């Protein structure tokens, strides 16, 4: 059975300097690997969370799947289609069924266009001019819970939450199967971030959507993602059903991330900080397991040998020589298995 989205050994690189300069400076490989050896499958109707801090490559991965950044090697298959070539045209058909919600809701809206123009733009771009754009605009605004008079507003007249809803409306215009949401709650107050998430969940139910949610906010992942993957320096270090990962984090980085979440209870203050230091520069990757420089449990083997992905339970995969959890304990807490290993 094929999944909605299949990613195999994906690698995305960025050039740091031109070939001439690199030769002059003696730099053999003037590239940075933003995404390395990433493989996963996404089943239709589910929500997958991509978690990582800055430099983890999660946003780049999302953009690579959308075709907005060129991939170096590896394959992406979406609805059975594989884009041939790298140009925007190669991605056109593929893109009709996929939409992206961007991190900064106001900045992702073209400042000189009205809300109506913005959300009906996909129709115009794809040559579906026959449709009644006014009606479509009203339908989309209604779908995201915005009153129809918003159609005449400009992006700078919208609050963060309203702009996000417009972003959702625009993403829904062509009835996509997959929506990639980059930090859907960034910048939103705690009291309203539920609104956008509840909306997304409701739409998923009503329209049969699949979501890939890119975020650093572990708290929301716990609530709305079926499965998740943790990224560090471009690689997946842990992947599995959300409930299982939260209940028994197997990778020291996952463990550290969970420990770093502040808890609104003054009686639960942490006296020590588990993860110290910073993410190393992508230009100077550590040897062996790239997390060894910060791992409280690092051993010699970790410095020398890079861990390969290993399965530690149904739907769970890990890159670590010394997982924190014995494989048996890594079983998911629920019996819902949204994807295969």
């Amino acid at each position, binding site marked *: 059975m094929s999944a909605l989205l299949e990613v195999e050994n994906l690698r995305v690189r960025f050039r740091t300097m031109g070939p001439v300069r690199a030769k002059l400076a003696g730099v053999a490989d003037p590239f940075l690997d933003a995404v390395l050896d990433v493989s996963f499958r996404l089943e239709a109707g589910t929500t997958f969370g991509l978690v990582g801090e800055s430099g983890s490559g999660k946003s780049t991965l999302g953009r690579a799947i959308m075709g907005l950044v060129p991939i170096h090697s590896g394959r992406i298959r979406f609805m059975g289609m594989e884009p041939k070539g790298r140009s925007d045209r190669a991605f056109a058909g593929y893109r009709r069924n996929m939409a992206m919600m961007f991190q900064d809701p106001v900045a992702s809206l073209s400042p000189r266009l009205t809300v109506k123009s913005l959300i009906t733009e996909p129709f115009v771009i794809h040559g579906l001019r026959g449709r009644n754009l006014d009606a479509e605009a009203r339908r989309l605004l209604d779908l995201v819970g915005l009153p129809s008079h918003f159609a005449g507003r400009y992006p700078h007249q919208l609050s*963060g939450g309203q702009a996000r809803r417009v972003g959702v409306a625009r993403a829904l215009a062509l009835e996509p199967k997959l929506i990639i949401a980059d930090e859907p709650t960034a910048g939103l107050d*705690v009291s309203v971030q539920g609104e956008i998430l*509840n909306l997304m*969940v409701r739409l998923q139910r009503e329209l049969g959507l699949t979501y890939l949610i890119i975020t*650093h906010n572990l708290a929301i992942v716990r*609530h709305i993602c079926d499965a998740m993957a943790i990224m560090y320096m471009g690689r997946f270090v842990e992947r599995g059903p959300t409930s299982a990962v939260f209940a028994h984090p197997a990778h020291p980085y996952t463990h550290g991330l969970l420990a770093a979440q502040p808890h*609104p209870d003054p009686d639960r203050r942490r006296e020590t900080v588990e993860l110290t230091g910073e993410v190393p520069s992508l230009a100077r990757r550590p040897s062996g397991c790239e997390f060894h420089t910060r791992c409280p449990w690092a051993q010699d083997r970790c410095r020398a040998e890079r861990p390969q992905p290993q399965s530690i339970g149904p739907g769970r995969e890990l890159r670590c020589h010394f997982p924190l959890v014995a494989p048996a304990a890594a079983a998911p807490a629920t019996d819902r298995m949204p994807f295969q290993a």
Partner: protein
Amino acid sequence: MAAIAQTAPERIAATDAVLEVRDLSIDFLTPRGPVQALRRVGLTVPRHSTVGVVGESGSGKTTLISAAIRLLPDNAEIRGGEVLFEGQDILRMSPRQLRDLRGRRISMVFQDPMTALNPVLSIGTQMVDIQYRDKGLSTAAKRDRAAEMLRRVGIPDPRQRLDNYPHEFSGGMRQRIAIAMALLGNPELLIADEPTTALDVTMEAQIIHLLRELQKDYKSSILFISHNLGLIAELCDYVVILYAGTVVEQGSVRDVFHRPSHPYTEALLVCDPALLQETTRELPTIPGEVPDLAPPPPGCIFAARCPKVFDRCRVEDPAATWVAEGHMARCHLAAGRT
């Protein structure tokens, strides 16, 4: 707007206070009319303590701290109140007195460390420059102090790194440097405005931990602004909950988080996904928007969104009620309780 009856001046503790805001009201003059950004706000920062201000967007927290160092925008008008720093009113100080105060006795750390760092000067130069008031010290001595401060905030190889430029450091490091610069003058009050919002969660945890230690070592007081309840619980002794320009609740962190006495505080705690025990696909929210403050609606400012609202709320602005020693809430329900 009905007069707010105050049973007692708004003090968290009767002890010695580094900063005391009393009855502060600030308007912004806009083409639409005056916007009442702060209305009779009062809070106290006791000596050697950390006070958190929780405010979402539109709460007025930026206005509050701008007033504390008197760097308000041109169209701001102070309608009344005082901001007492060590007993002296900042709002009535001369520019000379303010210059003396800023950077030495009150310093600030911003969300973006580049607000404090000049990109074209090395950090050593900057850290020596801000010690300009210490006329007795030689440049070498100032550099020594700077290096020591960098070491203290966790920058490795501090001496060598004095010659580096801000762009050669990561975001987390830059924030540490900004904190180091803020503490160089050994201020009585450090104001931190969302200092970790732009940082990763692991770096955030480290910075919070650092602030806790530094506060103890340097015996400063910290006024910490954030929308993140978890951070406030981690770092602060007292908390002030600000909603649409009004202080709706304040008290010790334990009192407010364990026994919230204002529906807004309760709702905030409920909405925080980290606090929700059961995973849910229907996250709680506070429906509605922050009200338009030009002019504010009659009655309680939270009435339009309050799940426990009743008729009186829409008509009469609640007075400050002391639900316990040092714990205040501005709610009719709270008043009914005591």
